[in-house]
């Protein structure tokens, strides 16, 4: 597990703003998703739903929802969390991310706005200091009765736990695509610095069932789906 400062040193060596853009590798894996299947039944029977996709921008997902007559909002929170201006220190002097600033710039929506939130694997890869504040904000922007889908690793598989983006290709079928950070030239003290950082996001922690229940404590119900690939799918209802 990497610390905030290590992650930021790796990502943001240099003095100007980040140009971290998720690059897409060509390899895509297909997986069945019971949580998505249950969610699909809800949006297939409804009209004009309001959906928030928190993964990397997915043309497939945007097409999927707009063709179904729904409105989709896309907001890549993981990439947004790599903004170097978020880096601050807590009372002990440890490096953390400023959750207030993060929530001032991201997830800015009216209360009870969304019917569905696709969280994907965000909590597993998001920095510790942002996880609870973000889940709190998600609760407030989700309508009562609205649903949120999230994926959690059941164990730390190290390098075998790459961060994926998810494309909806069927009612219960997802295509997973590994996210790689593509860093472009940035301005350093002595001019442009070209780097070749291609690491993906690092798995930050492994939640157990109790942790997940605590994380979604304010929600009305929570449902777990275990999958064969060491992923625990969670569908929560506000």
């Amino acid at each position, binding site marked *: 597990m990497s610390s905030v400062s290590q992650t930021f040193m790796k990502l943001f060596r240099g003095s100007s703003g980040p140009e971290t*853009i998720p690059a897409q590798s060509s390899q895509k894996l297909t997986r069945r998703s019971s949580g998505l299947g249950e969610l699909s039944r809800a949006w297939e029977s409804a009209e004009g739903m309001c959906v928030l996709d928190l993964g990397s921008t997915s043309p497939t997902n*945007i097409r999927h929802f*707009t063709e179904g007559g729904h409105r*989709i*909002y*896309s907001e890549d929170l993981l990439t947004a969390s790599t903004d170097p201006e978020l880096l601050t220190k807590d009372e002990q002097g440890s490096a953390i991310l400023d959750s207030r600033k993060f929530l001032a710039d991201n997830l800015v929506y009216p209360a009870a706005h969304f019917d569905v939130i696709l969280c994907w694997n965000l909590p597993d890869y998001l920095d510790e200091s942002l996880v609870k504040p973000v889940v709190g904000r998600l609760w407030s922007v989700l309508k009562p009765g609205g649903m949120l889908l999230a994926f959690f690793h059941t164990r730390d598989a190290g390098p075998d736990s790459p961060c994926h983006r998810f494309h909806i290709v069927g009612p219960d079928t997802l295509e997973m695509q590994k996210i790689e950070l593509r860093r472009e030239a940035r301005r350093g003290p002595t001019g442009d610095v070209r780097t070749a950082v291609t690491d993906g996001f690092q798995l930050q922690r492994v939640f157990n069932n109790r942790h997940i229940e605590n994380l979604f404590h304010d929600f009305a119900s929570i449902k777990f789906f275990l999958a064969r690939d060491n992923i625990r799918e969670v569908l929560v209802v506000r």
Partner: protein
Amino acid sequence: MSAPASGLAQIGKSVFIKGELSGSEDLYLDGQVEGSIALKGNSLTVGPNGQVKASVDAKGVVVQGKLEGNIQASDRVELRKSAVVTGDITTQRISIEEGAYLKGKVDIHRTDTK
């Protein structure tokens, strides 16, 4: 990257405009604009060097560079792979290439054709 067609109105990459930009012909914009852009009945192309902080109202919008602001397109919106868009999009049709970045809402308004 698609180059601008000859004869097309162009704003080059060294140009910075602040204010209201309107016209009645297609526009290729590779510079910086802050304010608003109204090209009703015509198309706007934001080139790879383009940096726009403006609301956009046009028939068609193609983005290759950066655009911050809401897009209202009566026909279609295309986000190319290098596009970085922050704002809500309202249009009839949209295409988004792999690699494009979007932070905002996509709202498709369909008009019935008989």
